[in-house]
């Protein structure tokens, strides 16, 4: 029996502060797995991960083991990774290609759409209610799957808003990422960074649109960029990308204050860009030329005038559309989280331009990133600090009450804690529902 009825849940999240239990109580984590990860639209993969019939990849929705597969007819399936017989996890590796899935335990075999193909000793089931055509004995599909421009989302809830309703205009960040390809398509590149930190998943989600940590947390890498440039570049020379990816985090508060911060219903949000491309960069201009060839000048201008840093699709995925990065947030326990990071190639873009994506991956998202260790140190220390009984409350007060309501979204100055308040409001609503 839960200690948390609807009133108790609502008491944890106030207009501009959050109770520390939201981050540290294992009981709330269990409830999140049911009420948030069990209901929301959860990103499960990109269609380019499973290009050919028989391709599959494995993931989790909350803690549910999941297979994403491409069937012989080209259709995409999101299946529970569980044998219909005695329950073994059928697919044991991370990814691959298969004609069919065969359980390692008693050899039940499934088509790549999850339907049961064969079981040994069929006669032994005569007279029981077993039926090879009964979907209950297959690898069961999750209730709902939707694909938006290659991004595959699934929901464990049979009922609920459509993906379009759930994401609303936040989907425009997916458009932003895909439209940047001269062919209008993304392709995942090989390898995946799997980075673990010792903090609650929500601490990371909050940080994605937190604009007042970079100049503090990242001081060491900001200085590394600045010092390197001072020692090696002539005065006024353009920064190499590696320097900009570190140094720009040190921009003053005034810069971040002027950034766009836009939040949506259901916890989503994005912030304006901090690494705008330079029109003096010949590699970028070569890319612009490829875009103009594909879309014409006007449409290209329209596409490239968008500059967004991290967009959050609450609760489990974030994209950086300008440098084609995706971070998949996988809660492991109340105080442990894994993020799987993928990078994408813009199909049709010049190879030299694609190297910018690689540099971003390497410097920002690799476990051996020059930037990220200080973020993770901060997350881990928040988790350790919140154990303290000194106060029950976490402050999210900055610029509270100064938001601008617009049609379909809310905006604020760039340094507001609006995105966090918005996430926790969504958290409270979902957690209280059915409590």
């Amino acid at each position, binding site marked *: 029996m839960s200690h948390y009825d609807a009133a108790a849940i609502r008491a944890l999240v106030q207009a501009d502060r959050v109770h520390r239990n939201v981050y540290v109580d294992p009981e709330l984590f269990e409830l999140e797995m049911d009420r948030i990860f069990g209901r929301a639209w959860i990103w499960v993969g990109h269609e380019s991960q499973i290009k050919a019939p028989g391709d599959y990849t494995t993931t989790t929705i909350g803690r549910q083991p999941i297979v994403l597969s491409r069937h012989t007819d080209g259709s995409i399936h999101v299946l529970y990774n569980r044998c219909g017989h005695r329950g073994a996890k059928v697919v044991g590796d991370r990814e691959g290609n298969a004609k069919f899935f065969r359980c390692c335990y008693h050899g039940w075999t499934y088509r790549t759409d999850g339907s049961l193909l064969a079981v040994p000793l069929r006669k032994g089931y005569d007279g029981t209610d077993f039926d090879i055509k009964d979907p209950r004995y297959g690898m069961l599909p999750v209730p709902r799957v939707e694909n938006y421009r290659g991004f595959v989302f699934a929901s464990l809830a049979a009922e609920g808003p459509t993906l379009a309703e759930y994401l609303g205009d936040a989907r425009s960040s997916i458009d932003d990422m895909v439209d940047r390809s001269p062919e209008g398509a993304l392709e995942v590149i090989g390898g995946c960074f799997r980075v673990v930190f010792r903090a609650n998943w929500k601490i990371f989600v909050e940080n994605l649109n937190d604009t007042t940590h970079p100049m503090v947390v990242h001081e060491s890498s900001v200085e590394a960029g600045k010092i390197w440039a001072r020692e090696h570049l002539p005065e006024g020379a353009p920064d190499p990308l590696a320097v900009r990816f570190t140094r720009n985090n040190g921009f003053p508060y005034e810069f971040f204050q002027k950034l766009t911060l836009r939040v949506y219903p259901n916890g989503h949000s994005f912030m304006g860009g901090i690494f705008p491309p330079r029109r003096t960069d010949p590699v970028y201009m070569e890319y612009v030329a490829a875009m103009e060839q594909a879309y014409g000048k006007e449409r290209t201008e329209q596409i490239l005038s968008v500059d967004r840093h991290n967009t959050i699709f609450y609760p489990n995925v974030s994209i950086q559309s300008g440098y084609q990065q995706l971070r998949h947030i996988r809660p492991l326990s109340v105080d442990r989280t894994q993020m799987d990071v993928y990078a994408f190639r813009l199909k049709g873009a010049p190879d030299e331009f694609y190297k910018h994506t690689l540099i971003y991956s390497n410097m920002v998202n690799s476990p051996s990133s020059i930037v990220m260790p200080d973020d*993770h140190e901060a997350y881990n220390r928040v988790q350790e600090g919140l154990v303290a009984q000194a106060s029950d409350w976490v402050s999210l007060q900055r610029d509270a009450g100064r938001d601008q309501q617009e049609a379909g979204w809310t905006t604020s100055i760039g340094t507001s804690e609006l995105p966090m308040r918005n996430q926790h409001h969504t958290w409270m609503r979902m957690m209280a529902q059915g409590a």
Partner: protein
Amino acid sequence: MTLAKGKAKTAAKTELSALEQFLYREAILLDEKRWQEWLALYTEDCFYWVPSVVGQKDPINTVSLYAEDRMRLEMRVIRVQHPHAFSQDFPTRMSHVVGNVMLDPDGGRGADGGTHPKADLVVRSTVHILEFRKDEQRLFGGTVRHWLRRAGDDWQIAMKRIDLINCDAPMEVVQLFL
């Protein structure tokens, strides 16, 4: 055995033992955080590569844990020494053990990821790295290849590739060099 052959064998032995000493020296510079001396082992056009998947073919079509040119190695060295590198408030400690040193029988063929480093020889070794920070230690291990270029009577590292057996494991951040 002819005299000439014997001499060649002795020379090869002497060279291998000097190469071993070179790799041990790099390991000690890393363990003792003598960063400037460590950087000095690398050429201006060096490439430091730690693949993210087993048998990775190149650093272009697959992401890498490290794919660093000299600029980025230098930036990292500045960072880890910075007094406000909070994640080094409790500094990471490392201990490298280098073994199985041999001239790479394949001469590094197929392992350079298409980067074609200018090198005189390729040395292959095995490394075990014990890392400690705060309350915990962890282990890394794998195969290392050094593409070495002669520099007077010493060598410089034109490229280093480290294939960790746990390169694709979920891991917490890695701050120092392998």
